C-alpha cells in the first residue's frame, strides 16, 4: 500500500428518488475518496443508499447533484473496461453455462471467441470451479454461483471491482470462506474494491478502509483506514477496540433507521 494515488472521488453527491408517496432523499452530500489498490467497505443500516452509491459508481444511476470521478474523469455511464460490478444476487444468465457466463463481458467487448474462452477457462481454476465450466447456474450452489458472478467481473480485467453485498445471500460459514478467498484474489490481482456489506466481520476482516453511512438520507458518517496486516486476527486488542467503535456507530444509525 505504498502508492496513495486517488482512483475514485465522490464529491458532494445527492440523489432523490420519486416514489408513490413523494420524493425521498437517498443520498445527501456524500463525499468519499478511495485510493488505488484499496479495499474500501461501505457499511450502514438498510436503505441508507449504499447500493445507490455503488450503482452511481457503476454508471447505472446518475446523481442529481455533485459528481463522481474515476481516474479524474466523470462517470457518465457504464464503463466495463474500468469498472466491473458484482451484484447481491449473482444475476447469472440461466441459459448460459458457468464458462459462458464468465465470458459475457468479453463477448460484449467483441473479444474473439477463442481468446475469451481461454481467459474465462483460466479464471475458473482460482475460482474453484475447474470441473464446473459446462454446468448451468441451476446446477450450482449459492457460493459457486456467486463465484461465477465474481469471475464474470474479473474477466473484464477492470481496475475497479464494485461488490454489492456479494455474500449477503450465503450462509455464515460459506460467507467467511468466501471472504478469505476474495482477499486472496484481491491481493493477487491488485484491484481496487468497493464493497457494500451489513457485516461488521466482513468490514473488519477485509477492508483497508471503512466508510460508515448514516440512516436515510445517506451521508458518510465517518471513514477510517485499517492498516493491519492480513490475515487478520479478530481477537487482537486493536481489532476488538475497532469492532466496538464501529458497532457503536452503526448501532446508532440502525436505531435511527428503525424509527
Amino acid at each position, binding site marked *: 500500500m505504498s502508492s496513495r494515488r486517488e482512483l475514485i472521488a465522490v464529491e458532494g453527491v445527492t440523489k432523490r428518488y420519486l416514489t408513490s408517496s413523494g420524493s425521498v432523499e437517498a443520498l445527501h452530500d456524500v463525499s468519499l475518496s478511495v485510493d488505488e489498490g484499496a479495499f474500501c467497505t461501505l457499511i450502514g443500516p438498510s436503505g441508507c443508499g449504499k447500493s445507490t452509491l455503488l450503482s452511481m459508481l457503476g454508471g*447505472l444511476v446518475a446523481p442529481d447533484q455533485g459528481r463522481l470521478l474515476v481516474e479524474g474523469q466523470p462517470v457518465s455511464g*457504464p*464503463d466495463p473496461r474500468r469498472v*466491473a*460490478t458484482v*451484484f447481491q444476487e449473482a444475476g447469472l*444468465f440461466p*441459459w448460459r453455462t458457468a464458462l459462458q457466463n464468465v465470458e459475457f463481458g468479453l463477448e*460484449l467487448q467483441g473479444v474473439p471467441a477463442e481468446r475469451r474462452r481461454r481467459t474465462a477457462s483460466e479464471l475458473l481454476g482460482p475460482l474453484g470451479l475447474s470441473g464446473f465450466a459446462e454446468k448451468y447456474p441451476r446446477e450450482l450452489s449459492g457460493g459457486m454461483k456467486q463465484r461465477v458472478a465474481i469471475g464474470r467481473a474479473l474477466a*473484464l480485467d477492470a481496475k475497479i471491482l464494485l461488490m454489492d453485498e456479494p455474500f449477503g445471500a450465503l450462509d455464515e460459514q460459506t460467507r467467511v470462506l468466501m471472504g478469505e478467498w476474495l482477499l486472496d484474489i484481491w491481493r493477487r490481482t491488485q484491484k481496487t474494491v468497493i464493497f457494500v456489506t451489513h457485516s461488521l466481520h466482513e468490514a473488519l476482516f477485509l477492508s483497508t478502509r471503512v466508510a460508515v453511512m448514516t440512516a436515510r438520507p445517506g451521508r458518510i458518517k465517518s471513514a477510517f483506514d485499517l492498516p493491519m496486516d492480513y490475515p487478520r486476527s479478530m481477537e487482537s486488542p486493536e481489532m476488538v477496540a475497532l469492532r466496538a467503535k464501529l458497532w457503536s456507530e452503526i448501532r446508532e444509525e440502525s436505531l435511527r433507521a428503525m424509527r
Partner: protein
Amino acid sequence: MKVLGLRLALLALLVAAWEIAGRTMNPLLGVPPSAVLPALRDLLLLRSYPDLPASLALTVREIATAYALAVAAGVGCGFMLGMHRLVGRVWGPMLAALYAVPAVVWYPSLMLFFGLDAASKIAFGFLLGFFPVALAVLAGIRQVNPQLVVVARAYGAGTVTVFRRVMLPAMMFTLVGGLRTGLALCVIGVIVGEILGSKAGMGALINHAYGLLRTGDYVALVLVTLILVVGSDVLASTVERRARRWTE
C-alpha cells in the same frame, strides 16, 4: 424404441377397433379402414377429386398468409403492450377479454366483410392465431428478470444487445410456445372457415363429400388434412429447436 413399438401397437389396436365398429354400422355413417383405403387411393390418384392439389395449395396459402399476419401483428402488439407500461395497462384487459370470446362468433361477420373467398378464411385464421402469439410475447416480457437487464447494462450492453442477449433468450420458451399454438390455431381457423362456408379449399371438399354422404371420401379427405396439420406442427417444432440453438 420401446415407446415407438408401443405406439405402433396402440395404433394397430385402434385401427382394428375402428374396423370392427365400422363393419357393424350403417355404411353411410361408419366407414371401416378397409373401405377408406380404396377411397384414399382414388383421392390420391385424383380420381374422386381432381382438384385436390389446387385445394390443398389454396388451404396452405391461406394458412401461411393468416399465420404471417398473426405473427407480425401478435409480436408487434405484444411488444408494444409489454414495453410501455401505460399502453399495456390500458389495453391488456381488453386483449384478454377478446381472447375469452369464442372466436367463431365473429365468423359470420367476417364472411360478410371479406366474402366467401380466401380473405374471410385468412381473417379467421388470423383472429385465432393472433391472440396466443400476442399473449405469449406479453407473458414472455413479464418473465424477464429485471436484475439480468441491469447486469447486462453494467457490462456495457445497449438497448439492442439487451434485447438480443437478455430479453429474447429469457422469453424464448414462452414465445416459441405461443408461436406454436398460434400456428395450430391458424390451421384450425382456416379449415373451420372453409367448412363453414367456402367454394374452394380442403374444407370445401370435406363439406362436399360429407354433404353427399360419400363417407369414404370424407374420411380420406380428413386424413389428408390431418397430414397437413401434423406437418405444420413438425415444421413448428423444428423451428423451435433452431430458435433455442440460436439463443445460445
